[in-house]
């Protein structure tokens, strides 16, 4: 399927080891920047109790949820350690410092 990429801003809009939110009609997305300058986008909602993952502490390629310390992989969206659960991951790409997310996946998510 061809991706329909939508611009959301610059990589420098996101603090290193931090996150920003992107609002969409059906789900809030958290976009993260790691210490290696990789960018990941996942649903901004912890599978445990719905905590806003964008507010968590970022370490390696994981984020720790601010509500009850679940650790979520930014790569797979899966909870790490003994916890079980998963959030949606959203394709994101960086071109010349500009960030884009793929909209098809959003529409699929919305249609579910």
């Amino acid at each position: 399927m061809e991706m329909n990429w939508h611009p959301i801003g610059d990589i420098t809009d996101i603090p290193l080891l931090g996150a920003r939110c992107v609002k969409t009609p059906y789900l809030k997305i958290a976009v993260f920047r790691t210490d290696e300058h990789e960018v990941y986008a996942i649903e901004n909602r912890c599978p445990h109790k719905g905590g806003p993952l964008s507010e968590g502490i970022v370490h390696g390629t994981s984020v720790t949820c601010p509500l009850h310390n679940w650790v979520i992989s930014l790569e797979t969206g899966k909870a790490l350690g003994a916890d079980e659960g998963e959030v949606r991951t959203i394709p994101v790409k960086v071109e010349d410092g500009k960030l884009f997310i793929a909209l098809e996946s959003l529409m699929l998510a919305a249609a579910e």
Partner: protein
Amino acid sequence: MTEKLVIIGNGMAPGRMLEHLFEQAPDRYSVTIFNAEPRVNYDRIMLSPVLSGEKTYEQIVIHGDGWYIDHGITLHKGQRVVAIDRATKTVTSDHGVTESYDKLVIATGSVPFIIPVPGNNLPGVVSYRDLDDVDAMLLAAQSREKAVVIGGGLLGLEAAAGLALRGMDVTVLHVNPTLMERQLDPAAGYLLQTELERRGIKIICKANTKAIIGDDKVEGVELDNGTIIPATLVVMAVGIRPSARLGRDAGLAVNRGIVVDAGMQTSDGDIYSIGECAEVDGMVYGLVAPLYEMARVAAAHLAGDARPAFVHSDTPTKLKVTGIDLYSLGDFADGEDRQEIVLRDATAGVYKRLVLKDNRIIGTVLYGETSDGAWFNDLKKKAVDISDMRDTLIFGQAYQGGSPLDPMAAVAALPDDAEICGCNGVCKGKITSTITAKGLTSLDEVRAHTKASASCGTCTGLVEQLMSLTLGDAYNPKAVQPMCPCTELGHDDVRRLIKAKGLKTIPAVMQELEWKTSCGCAKCRPALNYYLVCDWPDDYADDYQSRFINERVHANIQKDGTYSVVPRMWGGVTNAQELRAIADVVDKFEIPMVKVTGGQRIDLLGIEKEDLPSVWADLGKAGFISGQAYAKGLRTVKTCVGSDWCRFGTQDSTGLGIRIEKFMWGSWTPAKLKLAVSGCPRNCAEATCKDIGVICVDSGFEIHFAGAAGLDIKGTEVLGLVRTEDEALEHIVALTQMYREQGRYLERIYKWAKRVGLDEIRRQIMEDRDKRQAYYERFVFSQKFAQVDPWSERVSGKDKHEFRPMASVDFSQAAE
């Protein structure tokens, strides 16, 4: 070829049975489970901590969904088996699902006994068996109204204590003259009743329920003497009976429970039964240890080993109500051929009673001091003749054979077959041999491999002592506890090395101290950030991304992702202009909840993150700064009105409180720091349970510290008496700085004080003038950089990105 194993019921016994079975014969069966409850296997013993709020459902799950998937188990959640057809070897559920079996295990547990009185089916009458019951009670508890618990046994009292903690007004009705008469003698029952009454639970013994009254829901309980006790919730906890109907319908031999032999086999050779529904040798069981024993035996038989046989053993009983230590075992009824040894210590609330027959222990009741329970149990199990130690027996193992032994020696002296974990039937030898064989070094590992202390956890101390004994210096929970999995170093080593090596950034610490991860984790980063802020106040640039969200956005995150905002209200004093400004902010931002806090100020709850800077801007115009109600730092200084108003006040406690708060606000500490100043020993500001408190007296100021009123409750210790306000401030500030420099991150002052010793703290702060002044000056220096109001900074534009989404994608764009 794999055989088909079908299990009816998904409680703790079948869960444990499967763990054993997968160990012994991993591929022998394909397993199907029918669970009438719509969930996975959870720890039913821990329902009481869930009710009281000390644990959550997630924390008591034994096998998560993943475990069933990993073992290829088909789990039918929410399906009740309605029939067993032994001729065709099939079972059928209420959803119409039929499964055939080669072997069948019936583990349907028990059903609560509902007393046959009018009104027992009214809405608002619940039993106490499973999570649905707990949910129903929690819902009812939200009303903070009246609850009646019928039944003063183990379950009933745990339910009562839980509901009381949830804020309900609880009355326990018990049909017998004393509580828990099956486990406790009248003396211990009385002590227990006194303690529960002290906690605000009303207890009526010899209470016969005549009817539960109410029209379309519960309104109260009527006793046979005509008394009516109003209630919106009635919990029936009078007992359980085995759930044996399926077995009876299928034509199996059934008495009270489904009759099984010592191999857990029913009268049909292909059908086993375990758990509370099974009756073995005329006995049915309700405590977890014998049920786990049944699970072990059944698993062996299913795996093809017909040797293990179930043997009855007495199980100790413990009450899971925080702060009440109670242990009971065996037979403690009076009798002509019996003798008893009793120890009472009314002041300490201790009662111990041993029942002897032919110089052997046959029963034990311990209340208030239960650490010797395992030893008495062991003597009883082995039928040891106690004649030689009769005079000192009641004092416990430490007092046998001359001088008192230390607790480690007592544990060392236990034989290998002494039971350590009653819930899981784990003996000392099993724990020590597993530690050695598998090279275990942490408590979590020992729990995972042996199950010891993995259920109710009351034997954790014993297990840790065994680890010390087995591992020697290799296990020292205090010394080798690393900060987090990113390093082998403990907090104290890290703090020392930061100073010694002059490390001034988080990357420098991680590099020099050989961190195992690239950028740490959510445990070590906030700790390192604090240590660096504390040690290098002028050099270190606070690392924003290493702070928890609350300290990053200077507000408290709530469960729904909104925030609460608490402005500083110096010493808890306010005025009309401030209150008007707060009221205007509440109106303007439609703030849904305004709450007076325990720290004498006002909390505004339910504010959207994006609104925070505007809220702060408006509050700032009225002169408010952040109350730092979110900080590991100085929170509040509570005061009473003191000599300005109060006829008992000895000093200006309000003025001193405000002075301390204005001096110390903005400072970061290892954990939150709450202060209070009371104007006289009547202590209206509750200074004696604070991190640091002052009690004003005629002759000056008595400084207290190391109190706690949260997870732990602890009165303060006295630091000392000083004459003047200036001295009081200097001593408090010096104490705070000492704690700032030595405390481990998230370690409250009372834990730090316990670790370093009260005398050492008194010596440095009260007696060593040079030390005290040096601490004071370092605090003052640090405050030059710390006393910046974070709200006004952000109103002026700092961290703007934090409060705005990066982008919005609306639906028309998304649909392009």
